[in-house]
């Protein structure tokens, strides 16, 4: 799915990104501690991990809203932190963000039209005379009507607001969209609609997505590759199906085993982690997951594992991944179908598509 020629520049190249927050009298909080990955054009990379593992900090640095302590973010080969403020602001139309909370991501004192026209004017996407037409096109893109353009955000439901937020991100014709948990604040039925919308838009316009989520079923549905983050570091990155079917890192296994399997014939095989989530302030010499890992030994607590290649398109940060017993969630092919609510909507959509030639 990702198949890009090696010569082609990645859309986004994150190199050894570090963000430490200094604390008076205490060790610095290592929110992001040396994260590297790339996203190809038209690819969706999902970033998963529990709360507080540094996902949102990473997103803020990629959006150049927060300065990294060290490391760099390259957008089409351009280092964002090396740009002047003016040049950065001009480049910002190429990468946009969709927020988690649709209730706080829209200015309550601006109509939808104002919100959507703003990026068009700022980046001179279309001439002034075409702005109303473009705004209604953006609205129809996300399934809203142009009659709703003169309303204020509080007149919309959560799902509709999130659509407006997506339309705003689309307005400046970006190439990369960072989705910071875009559906976790929405209820299940709306969630599927928004996810499908994001996928359709990707097919139409060829966006790259960095899709931050903690909802693994959503991730499996939408992403091409998955990166698993634990306490500021990537522990595993690989093609979605490979990671979901054969997770290699102990943390990924524990995370995936928490997804309930809707089949009474399969005995629950939940891996319980011992201990508590570490504080990011504690500086560990070894693997940050070692205190909670059942396979940890002296080497794990002494030396931090680095991401190493573990097959095509797969990288693991673990000393023992070769020696771990094979992990199979025992999910047959049928059960890997999208969740029922998604399937129902997909079926309805294909029916409607069939009706209209």
């Amino acid at each position, binding site marked *: 799915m990702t198949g890009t020629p090696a010569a082609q520049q990645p859309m986004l190249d994150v190199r050894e990104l570090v963000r430490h927050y200094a604390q008076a009298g205490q060790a610095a909080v290592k929110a992001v501690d040396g994260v590297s990955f790339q996203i190809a054009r038209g690819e969706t990379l999902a970033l998963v991990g529990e709360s507080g593992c540094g996902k949102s900090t990473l997103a803020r640095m990629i959006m150049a809203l927060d300065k990294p302590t060290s490391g760099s973010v390259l957008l089409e080969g351009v280092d964002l932190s090396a740009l002047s403020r003016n040049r950065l602001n001009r480049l910002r139309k190429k990468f946009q963000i969709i927020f988690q909370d649709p209730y706080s991501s829209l200015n309550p004192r601006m109509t939808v039209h104002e919100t959507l026209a703003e990026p068009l004017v700022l980046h001179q996407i279309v001439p002034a005379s075409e702005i109303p037409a473009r705004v209604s096109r953006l609205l129809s893109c996300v399934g809203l009507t*142009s009659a709703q353009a003169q309303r204020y955000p509080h007149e919309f439901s959560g799902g509709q607001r999130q659509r407006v937020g997506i339309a705003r991100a689309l307005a400046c014709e970006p190439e990369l969209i960072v989705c910071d948990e875009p559906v976790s604040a929405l209820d299940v039925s709306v969630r599927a609609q928004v996810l499908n919308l994001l996928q359709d838009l990707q097919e139409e316009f060829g966006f790259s997505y960095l899709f931050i989520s903690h909802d693994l079923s959503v991730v499996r549905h939408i992403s091409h590759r998955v990166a698993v983050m634990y306490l500021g570091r990537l522990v595993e990155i690989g093609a979605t199906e490979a990671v979901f079917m054969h997770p290699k890192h102990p943390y990924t296994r524990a995370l995936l085993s928490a997804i309930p399997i809707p089949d009474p014939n399969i005995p629950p095989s939940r891996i319980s982690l011992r201990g508590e989530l570490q504080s990011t302030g504690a500086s560990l010499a070894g693997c940050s997951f070692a205190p909670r890992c059942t396979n940890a030994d002296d080497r794990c607590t002494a030396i931090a594992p680095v991401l190493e290649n573990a097959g095509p398109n797969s990288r693991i940060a673990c000393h023992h991944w070769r020696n771990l017993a094979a992990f199979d969630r025992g999910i047959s092919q049928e059960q890997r179908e999208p969740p029922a609510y998604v399937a129902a909507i997909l079926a309805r959509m294909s029916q409607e598509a069939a009706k209209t030639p």
Partner: protein
Amino acid sequence: MTQQSVAVAAPRSARTTPRALQRLLKDKIALVMLILLVLIILGAIFAPLLTSFDPYRTSLRNRNVPPGALHLFGTDEQGRDLLARVLFGIRLTLASGFISLFLGGIVGTAIGVCAAYYKRADNILMRAMDTVLSFPAILLGLAIAGISGPGTWSVILALAISTVPPIARVARSSALSVVNQDYLVAARALGLGDPTILRRYVLRNCAPSILVYVTLRFGQVILLGASLSFLGLGAPPPAAELGTMVSQGRALLFTAPHVALVPCFAIFIIVLILNVLGDAARDIFDPKIQQ
């Protein structure tokens, strides 16, 4: 498409204003007060048309005349018509209150919003505000009058300076709740410049609470201004100013009480009206109730 959206938009945007108006109409006391205030302002503006008396012409034969048919509010110890003087006094008092609030409001809002938005400037700006706040307005007025001499502009300046810190605090606290919202992050992610973000995002969302506070503050400013001129820091004696008039009538409190009581009553009514309206404005414009 566009025409359709405009057509649909018209009744919608028109609906927001009547919503505030509807609330006002429900609040009967506020409505009465608003009508009274409008009447008083109109009376102050058209004072020369309402009374044939010159507020500055003395008439030694008609000194200390009690309220009656000819002189509705009576005359003072130099025989000047008190109705004319009160009307002109209200004019001066309201104008100086408004000007000082306007100046103080603009400076205070700018300081408060900048303190909230530029985290580095926060401490410097707000500690400076605390310093100003530690001087009572009366003391400030005395100092300014000492430097530039008593006069209406000294009072306005003292009132404006004493208005800046509280407005800066209100502006800062309401701006702080805005700067952490995702829509501000979105604005920065779009590449908008700071002036646009401050104006279109921060200020637009803070404006209601600042306006409500300014309305509440108006009554206090009038009262303070009157106190300052009562102490002799305002316009010098021949001028028709409410505080100065009270101060002059004080000596005659037992022989001709109306000379002091009439301007007192005028101050009382104006401050009462402005306070009630300030409370009403808070209820009407509270964004939480609106949503």
